[in-house]
């Protein structure tokens, strides 16, 4: 059926009128909602749409809430991790609001608008754009996976919106010369440097560590970790006597790999492995009776609960780098307090992920308090700039935070230079990892050297 030309023009005109009308109604500021006193903690739901815009007549604008945007993998493969991170943030926001909200804005509530990256860098960037342009958030936070953080923060940078990253570990994120990007957690480069520091410490205390061997899985993470180790340990005066890599996805046996390491007879073995291959490596080390004085892993597989569960007593005495450990509760008073409330509410304890995002939320809140002294959210651009400046100048002492860090202070690249990881060792007493380094947060003494397999 063919329409006449006249009918087509008619339809076209109607469509154009509809579009214009829709656009008009959409851009119209929504009618002010009646102020109902918020008593429930559900104030953090993203459905709250009360605009932060106020009448121009008031000299001191009454800001009722300040919106921050958070991008996390809330669906997809990492949904479980995303939910965990979300709890950490929700809990922090709830505590902040319960303590009176943003005091320098007359007690305005902190509100989170959630963005779901689904674990995908392109979606993450689109969500960043939506949160900035449509939700008009004052700052962004997220996004867990380094690849998503990268694209989402690119968007934030281009709109001059502060981006606080509490949980990504790729070193390159803070090497981009960004002005609006801040990372509170330590990154993979820091961790490698910390490994050197730890081995230096062992050397000073016990002596006899001169040679280092490296075994790593050969994808980007393992290879870049191995590269950093090689550079840093060589620079620190250690001799690299063997470097072995394998492909974790296709590994059927590590016999030859371990033979080669054993032949090199290193004092220190550095390991970058995932779960299956980590288990296979430890078992093969046992079978081949290979026991270097120190066996130090770069978290991943070695801290996977599946690894810990399956490896049993063969995993004793191995060291691993961690960002967080359960026993820190005994060492960090603030953490104990927060975790008690947290576990009462959610039934799970804080972990490295939720604790880091909890901390990140507070950092952003502190910056907003500072910013509120010099700007108002009614002028979004100035307020975002003030938050950025507050972050750049921020200095937080270690007793204010629940992470085992020396505090918070950002360098000009936006990296928190006081962040650090910890070193844990699996104890033969209970088969759990205990924090052994840095000494200030250690809960158990270091067991050195790694005993030979027959003597266990």
């Amino acid at each position, binding site marked *: 059926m063919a329409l006449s030309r006249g009918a087509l023009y008619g339809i076209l005109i109607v469509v154009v009128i509809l579009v214009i009308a829709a656009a008009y109604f959409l851009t119209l500021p929504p009618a002010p909602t009646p102020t109902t006193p918020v008593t429930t903690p559900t104030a953090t739901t993203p459905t709250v749409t009360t605009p932060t815009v106020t009448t121009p007549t008031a000299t001191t604008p009454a800001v009722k809430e300040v919106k921050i945007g958070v991008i996390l993998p809330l669906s997809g493969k990492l949904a479980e991790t995303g939910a965990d991170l979300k709890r950490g943030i929700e809990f922090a926001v709830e505590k902040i609001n319960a303590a009176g909200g943003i005091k320098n804005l007359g007690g305005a509530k902190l509100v989170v608008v959630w963005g779901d990256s689904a674990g995908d860098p392109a979606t993450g960037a689109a969500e960043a754009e939506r949160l900035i342009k449509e939700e008009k958030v004052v700052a962004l936070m997220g996004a867990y996976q380094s690849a998503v953080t990268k694209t989402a923060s690119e968007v934030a940078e281009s709109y001059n919106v502060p981006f606080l990253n509490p949980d990504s570990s790729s070193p390159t994120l803070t090497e981009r010369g960004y002005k609006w990007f801040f990372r509170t957690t330590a990154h993979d480069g820091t961790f490698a440097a910390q490994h050197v520091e730890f081995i230096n410490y062992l050397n000073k205390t016990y002596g006899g560590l001169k040679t280092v061997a490296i075994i790593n899985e050969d994808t980007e993470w393992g290879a870049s970790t191995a590269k950093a180790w090689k550079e840093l340990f060589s620079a620190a005066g250690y001799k690299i006597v063997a470097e072995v890599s394998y492909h974790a996805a296709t590994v*059927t*046996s590590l016999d030859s790999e371990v*033979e080669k390491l054993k032949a090199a007879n290193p004092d220190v073995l550095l390991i970058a492995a995932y779960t299956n291959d980590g288990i296979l490596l430890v*078992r093969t080390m046992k079978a081949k009776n290979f026991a270097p004085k120190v066996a130090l892993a770069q978290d991943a597989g070695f801290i996977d609960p599946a690894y810990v569960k399956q490896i049993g007593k063969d995993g004793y005495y191995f060291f691993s780098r961690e960002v967080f450990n359960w026993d820190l509760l005994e060492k960090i008073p603030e953490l104990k307090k927060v975790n008690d409330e947290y576990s009462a509410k959610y039934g799970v304890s804080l972990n490295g992920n939720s604790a880091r995002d909890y901390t990140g939320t507070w950092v952003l809140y502190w910056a907003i308090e500072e910013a509120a002294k010099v700007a108002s959210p009614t002028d979004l651009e100035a307020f975002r700039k003030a938050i950025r400046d507050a972050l750049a100048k921020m200095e937080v002492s270690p007793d204010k935070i629940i992470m085992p860090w020396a505090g918070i202070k950002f360098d000009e690249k936006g990296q928190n230079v006081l962040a650090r990881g910890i070193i844990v060792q699996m104890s033969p007493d209970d088969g759990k990892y205990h924090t052994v380094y840095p000494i200030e947060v250690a809960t158990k003494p270091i067991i050195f050297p790694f005993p030979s397999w027959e003597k266990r």
Partner: protein
Amino acid sequence: MVVELGSIIGALVSGLVIGSIYALVALGLAIIWGVMNVINFAQADFMALGAFIGFLLLDSLGIDPLISLILIFGIVFSIGVLTQRVAIEPILKAPVLSQITTTFAILLIIRYGLEVFMGPYTRVVEVPYRDLFIRFGSVSVSVPQLISLAVSLIVAFLLYLFMSRTFLGAALKATAQDMLAAQLHGINIKYMYRLAFGLGVGISAIGGVLLSLFYPIYPEMGAFFGMIAFISVVLGGFGSIFGAYLGGIIIGLIETISALFISPSLKTLAAFVVFILILIFRPKGMFGR
């Protein structure tokens, strides 16, 4: 580079051990191909299935996988026969692509079925003799690995006896050689196909159980073993069942020897290079007809 004699012996033993696992998976693949002309992509996932059944029997009933080996073979054999009856029989005359796609679907069902029911976690099969080692000087071999090598050889030998000494074995061979002639001699081809498929995946499952004695198991473990099984079969020569077994052993040995003399990072590469070289000089594989 000076290589000690001990290292060479160690590498040979490691190569034989892992090669004997590749060999079992390849053996099963070769039987199915030889008799039915079907390429079973799910071969190594039946291996994973065997490993997981062994794990479950040990975990819930405390039966040592070596004791339940025959039971596991029986279970996977039956699953194989059922698979043949339900999924493969109807498409035997379909284009090759349909057959390949069907076995690929079976692969996905097993692999992700295991992932759904067992979770994506890695597991270790805890047998009491796990930590026993035999050490001669600097050479150290674990008892589970030696057992695995021995059982693999025994399985290959029993299969040889079955094929050469029994009527069913002869009937299988006859079907493999000339289906029409076998049919004319009163052999029920349908049953032979079911037998071949059951046998093929059952032997693969034995490989999985043996592997689980010293290798952590997880639902996706079949992926790489499957690939190795394919090149073992091609190396041995399509159609030659025991050539496939030998092919598996040879791949295992190339891996460990090249790891020792060149670099462990290049062991898989070395195996594939040798594979291509052999095929250049013997396009039908070492024992191909």
